[in-house]
């Protein structure tokens, strides 16, 4: 498994660990904090983002120490092609989600539901980005 594939796996794991519980919590429905500008959910989101940073930081350190220097080469043309493909896929998810959140949700939802929906689509786009990276490296793996 290449170093960049490991990084993509790490990013997926960090997002699952951090945002999985967050969206399970906020997905239960509108809470008493629903009307803006209630700052309770903002604190929760900050905590979740810190957890993600900690998982990413520990993972990067582990991978950096465990990988030989020659594995950590700069991007080559295949890496760039994979990056381009994954970002294109993520872009369509993000733009679709933002159209939904910005153009349709204001007619049916309010407050933190809209904010969390926007966060959800940003995270979904990131998940698609790293998933396409992992899938591309898997498909092109020679053994």
């Amino acid at each position: 498994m290449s170093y960049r594939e490991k990084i993509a796996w790490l990013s997926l794991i960090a997002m699952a660990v951090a945002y999985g519980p967050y969206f399970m919590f906020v997905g239960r429905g509108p809470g008493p904090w629903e009307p803006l500008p209630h700052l309770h959910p903002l604190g929760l989101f900050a905590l979740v983002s810190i957890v993600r940073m900690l998982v990413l930081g520990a993972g990067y350190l582990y991978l950096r120490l465990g990988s030989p220097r020659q594995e950590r080469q700069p991007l080559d043309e295949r890496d760039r092609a994979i990056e381009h493909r994954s970002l294109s896929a993520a872009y369509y998810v993000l733009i679709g989600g933002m159209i939904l959140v910005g153009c349709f949700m204001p007619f049916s939802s309010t407050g933190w539901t809209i904010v969390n929906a926007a966060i959800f689509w940003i995270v979904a786009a990131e998940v698609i980005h790293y998933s396409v990276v992992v899938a591309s490296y898997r498909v092109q793996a020679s053994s």
Partner: protein
Amino acid sequence: MMQGSISNRIRTLRFMNGEMSQAELGQRIGLTRQTIAAIEAGKYSPSLEAAFRIAQVFNVPLGEVFQWEVKATPLKAS
């Protein structure tokens, strides 16, 4: 459209050049070992520039490294 696939002789050429490693070939043309492995296995088609670089490393024409194999398609009755 004409159907076909790209095959290559990189493994053979590496063997003929002192059992050159994938990592060494990659280093000489600015690609990673994994990319060379993917090209060798026919799972990634390199850019024209990278293909020429590979040929240059082995000092052979491009056609000796990469070949286009046309798939036989049945003729349609007119």
